[in-house]
């Protein structure tokens, strides 16, 4: 119960920090707080391995990469305030989406079956993930590694090409 309350409050507080902070470094800190709440939610949902990966990849990797991008683009550190019209329209659309989906969730009934106790024990669940990754979902797993490789190469190409083009322009 305490963990669930912690997950909910950290998630919502971090998300609020993301949308309300003009200082981008603090907004990224808010994202890290929200992700910590999500990781605790994963822990409560009987997925300790996924919770650990969430902390390692998201908080340890993605938010740090974002901080680097902010540091490299000095102008981006303090976000320009959006116009009032834009904020009102955005808030209205988000609120309408929230109301519609919340209505759908509360009105519908979901079938609930529970896993067998032995299947839910933490060791069994990590073992099942490893087996399925190399067995049932092996094609997806290998495709994902190719996607990551292409993404890394693409990121390097995009981030460096503009710079060399810029220096050529200066020479000309």
């Amino acid at each position, binding site marked *: 119960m305490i963990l669930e309350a912690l997950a909910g409050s950290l998630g919502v507080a971090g998300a609020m920090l993301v949308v309300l902070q003009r200082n*981008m470094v603090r907004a*990224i800190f808010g994202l890290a707080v929200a992700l910590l709440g999500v990781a605790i*939610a994963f822990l409560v949902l009987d997925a300790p391995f996924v919770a650990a990966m969430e902390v390692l990849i998201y908080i340890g990797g993605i938010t740090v990469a974002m901080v680097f991008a902010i540091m490299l683009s000095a*102008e981006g550190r303090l*976000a320009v305030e*959006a116009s009032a019209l834009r904020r009102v*329209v*955005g808030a209205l659309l988000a609120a309408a989406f929230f109301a519609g989906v919340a209505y759908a969730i509360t009105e519908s009934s979901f079938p609930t079956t529970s896993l067998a106790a032995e299947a839910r024990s933490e060791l069994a*669940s990590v073992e099942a993930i490893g087996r399925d990754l190399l067995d049932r979902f092996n094609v997806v797993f290998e495709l994902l590694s190719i996607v990551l490789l292409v993404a890394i190469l693409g990121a390097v190409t995009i981030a460096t*090409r503009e710079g060399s083009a810029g220096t050529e322009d200066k020479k000309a």
Partner: protein
Amino acid sequence: MTLQTWLLFALVLFAVGLYAVLARRNLIAILIGVELMLNAANINFLAFHRFVTNDPAVGQIVVLFVIGLAAAEVAIALSIVLAVYRERKAIDVQDLEELKG
């Protein structure tokens, strides 16, 4: 906590992320909003995995795939942000209007 409570928690995160994407002008702030929405979807996957399915791992594996794809997406998006910044000295989306019809 019931399944519906988890879905509502994920919905709060998704709506806040949607607001960030719609209302903020900084490219990295928009990217943070997308990340919030992806994490809301991950909570939904794990909640349905926990409460509905009998399979021991499928929901967790889908979430691991989403996390991996999000890492690739952030790498590409941040390199685009840096390229835009080098070209324009700004990462404000309202300056990027060459393709506006």
